[in-house]
């Protein structure tokens, strides 16, 4: 088997070890660890901002006929909440983890293109700032975008959205898109070219596997969004009519191009989360991942299928039963590789020795919450069910079970797992348990009930609602849940603040984990592995080191 060597060209350049002090050592950094941490902090900042937008929405919806905010403001709130959480929180958090971890996990010294790495991050932050600058634009044409995070045309066209909000939205997303694309290209190059000797593709940690597939997916679909955004901008600024039916354009063209990007984007927001779970569950079960090849291959299957399911967002559009049927079958097919993952994670725990650290508890929470989101996703693939439930609160519940119950739970699991490596200190398990249980209760209180609201006929994206039977009480409960959820995030922040100062020292490998990042110090030295990368003869190099008599290779031979 051919083994990748570290290219000599990289040896000559010094990337990170320039002596800079204070904030400049961060802003001017091209070190993947610092850039990764900045990704995480930047995205966490936007997570708080997007969360505050959500709380304002829940206050408005707490009682019927509420006048806490005007409809214009409410529409800006949900547009910015969705856009923020998708483009400035979930994707950057996952890229942040990838940027920090991929070089460490494959035994590399940095990303393949360290300067591109820093550029990608700063361009993405610039896009976020530009998007939020829209709030500061005053006057009759001012205000944030208010056409929803998928900005359906022709509502997003100048005739119906004459404020500059949509322009800021399109320009901001263009910048974010360019940054994300740069990061993805970098991850692909890093994972393919910079693996340590012995780290073959079949031995890659699953987190790297999924990050790699994910980066490919970004490379494939992000240009579609950017093209669509440019078309929208041309419509709005140069008076063209790609998406203006009144002038011979097509409103549906926007939906096709947006979702051709948008649905793969949903998987872009979940695949690295699958990677986190695939690292955490085995370590805290004391066993290797069950069915490594199947977990990895199912990721590839999901990525491919995700390119052929976009029109399940368009079942209500009226494109005909044959059309609906094709996309329904493709969408259902995705449930199969996803199910394979769920079963393999569960099987990993069987006959294991489970340690219920906060990280593991969030992973278990992920397993159950994501299953609910995945299954309601299957319901949406069933076309007639979609005809009733799409654009209702049922779909709001569904996306939050996937993206919060799935991705955010996995991200919290990842934070508790890798925080010791990143900071050198352990997070408080005591506060962690409080964080977990409050999140679990708050999350389910907020969103479980929204399934029922959808079934009772409440459409999404309404700034207020009549006091129909049941709507009042359920909306109030959902608002209470949202505040509980916000409180749990506050506890998490307190945990971060306290543990950073006074947390227990972590040591190199506090969890008895097996992948390469645990072979170096916590936090890792600037050059990652000053003492050299341990030899890689299997998927769990640190297990092999600790059990030279029972390496993975020998165990797998025994198992046949």
């Amino acid at each position, binding site marked *: 088997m051919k083994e990748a060597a570290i290219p000599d060209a990289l040896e000559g350049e010094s990337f990170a070890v320039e002596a800079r002090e204070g904030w400049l050592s961060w802003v001017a950094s091209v070190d993947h660890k610092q850039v990764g941490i900045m990704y995480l902090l930047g995205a966490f900042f936007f997570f708080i901002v997007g969360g505050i937008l959500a709380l304002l929405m829940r206050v408005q919806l707490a009682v019927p006929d509420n006048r806490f905010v*005007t*409809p*214009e403001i409410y*529409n800006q709130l949900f547009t910015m909440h969705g856009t923020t959480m998708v483009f400035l929180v979930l994707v950057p958090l996952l890229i942040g983890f990838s940027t920090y971890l991929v070089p460490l996990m494959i035994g590399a010294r940095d990303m393949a293109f360290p300067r591109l790495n820093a550029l990608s991050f700063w361009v993405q932050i610039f896009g976020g700032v530009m998007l939020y600058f829209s709030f500061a634009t005053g006057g009759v044409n001012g205000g944030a975008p*208010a056409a929803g995070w998928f900005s*359906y045309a*022709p*509502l997003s066209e100048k005739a*119906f959205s004459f404020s500059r909000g949509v322009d800021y939205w399109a320009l901001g997303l263009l910048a974010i898109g360019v940054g994300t694309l740069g990061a993805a290209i970098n991850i692909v190059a890093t994972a393919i070219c910079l693996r340590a000797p012995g780290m073959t593709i079949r031995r890659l940690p699953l987190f790297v596997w999924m990050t790699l597939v994910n980066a490919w997916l970004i490379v494939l679909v992000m240009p579609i969004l950017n093209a669509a955004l440019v078309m929208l901008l041309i419509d709005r600024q140069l008076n063209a009519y790609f998406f203006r*039916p009144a002038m011979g354009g097509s*409103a*549906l063209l926007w939906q096709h191009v947006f979702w051709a990007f948008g649905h793969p984007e949903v998987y872009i927001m979940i695949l690295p989360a699958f990677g986190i779970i695939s690292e955490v569950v085995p370590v805290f*079960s004391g*066993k*290797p991942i*069950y*069915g*490594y*090849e*199947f977990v990895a291959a199912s990721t590839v299957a999901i990525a491919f299928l995700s390119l052929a399911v976009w029109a399940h967002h368009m079942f*209500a559009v*009226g494109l005909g*039963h044959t059309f609906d049927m094709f996309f329904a079958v493709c969408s259902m097919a995705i449930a*199969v590789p996803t*199910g*394979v993952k769920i*079963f*393999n994670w569960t*099987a990993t*725990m069987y*006959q*294991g*020795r*489970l340690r*219920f650290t906060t990280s593991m508890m969030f992973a278990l929470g992920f397993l*159950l919450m994501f299953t*609910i989101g995945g299954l309601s996703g299957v*319901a949406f693939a*069933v076309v*007639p*069910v979609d*005809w*009733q439930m799409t*654009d209702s609160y049922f779909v709001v519940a569904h996306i939050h079970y996937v993206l919060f119950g799935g991705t955010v739970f996995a991200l919290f699991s990842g934070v508790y797992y890798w925080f010791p490596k990143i900071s050198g200190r352990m997070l408080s398990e005591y506060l962690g348990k409080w964080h977990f249980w409050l999140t679990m209760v708050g999350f389910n209180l907020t969103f479980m009930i929204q399934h029922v609201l*959808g*079934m009772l*006929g*409440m*459409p*999404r994206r*309404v*700034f207020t*609602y*009549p006091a*129909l*039977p049941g709507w009042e009480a359920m909306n109030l409960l959902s608002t209470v849940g949202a505040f509980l959820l916000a409180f749990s995030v506050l506890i998490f922040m307190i945990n971060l603040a306290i543990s950073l100062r006074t947390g227990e020292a972590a040591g190199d490998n506090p969890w008895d984990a097996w992948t390469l990042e645990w072979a170096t110090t916590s936090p890792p030295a600037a050059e990652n592995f000053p003492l050299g990368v341990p030899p890689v003869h299997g998927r769990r190099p640190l297990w092999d080191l600790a059990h030279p008599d029972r390496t*993975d290779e020998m*165990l*797998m031979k025994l*198992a046949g």
Partner: protein
Amino acid sequence: MPGPYSANAFTLAPASPQAAAISRLFVGTLIFLGVVLALVTLLVLYAIIRYRDRPGAPEPRQNFGSRRLETIWTVVPILLLIVLTAFMAYAMHTGDPAAAVDDPDLRIVAHQWWWEIYYPKSGVIAANEIHIPVGHSLSVELRSADVIHDFWVPQLARKIDIVPGHPNYLRLQADHPGTYLGACAEFCGTEHAWMRFQVIAQPPDKFAEWLRAQKAAPAAPTSPEAIQGAQIFADRTCANCHRVSHTVASASIGPDLTHVAGRRMLAAGALENTPANLGAWLHDPDEFKPGSHMPNLQLSKNDLNALVAYLETLK
């Protein structure tokens, strides 16, 4: 609240063959998915309880997987999904039967943020309330005057988008007399929340009566106040946007008002239709539906009362 909200919009309380087919599939799907969820939850909970770390537990056996199990949990879900797909195909057929493209019984035009209802066969125009005869399957044509909207009456039919430049067709039917709540389900701008409507299903004879009454010209105003109101309606800008049949007001920018006094709700669901509410609405539309295209006409108290008196004669 009594009155307008005694009706509901519960998807699992269908009142038409189409909605019933969808509802059955929905319930079946929920049960199927519920069983899968219960299975996964039990497997996870069993692992949590049975395999939790105990003091002195031996190191677990390092197990790398099983091809047999992988095959099982790949193939079994495929088979189950094939069964689900068959049920789905059946429900698509019964839940959304082909609707006639020519000569529709009803033509619905969605506007930001109200519904224009045409009965092409009788020439009647209404707004925000759709009267239909019980037991008749009507073919409906849906068009948009501006952006994308969505027609959703959960108890009667599938949801269907109303896309500018792309007319859609639907069959609408109700098995029992009653009121069925509907709403725009696709975000369509500022007042998307108040783009609600009601479908009122009546026995065929009652419906025919209603249709006749709608077609008839409204009685001419008799009280001096109402006569003054009619004058204001024609002179001020009302007539530039609204239509009252058999009068000079013939515009179709805003809702047809020929029989506005007979409707249950005002402003596409924002207000119950009472004389007091009508006055309050005319006094300041933004108070109840901020962002709507109905302007504040700065009417004097006298003019306002006269206008309300006139509109209340449009039964």
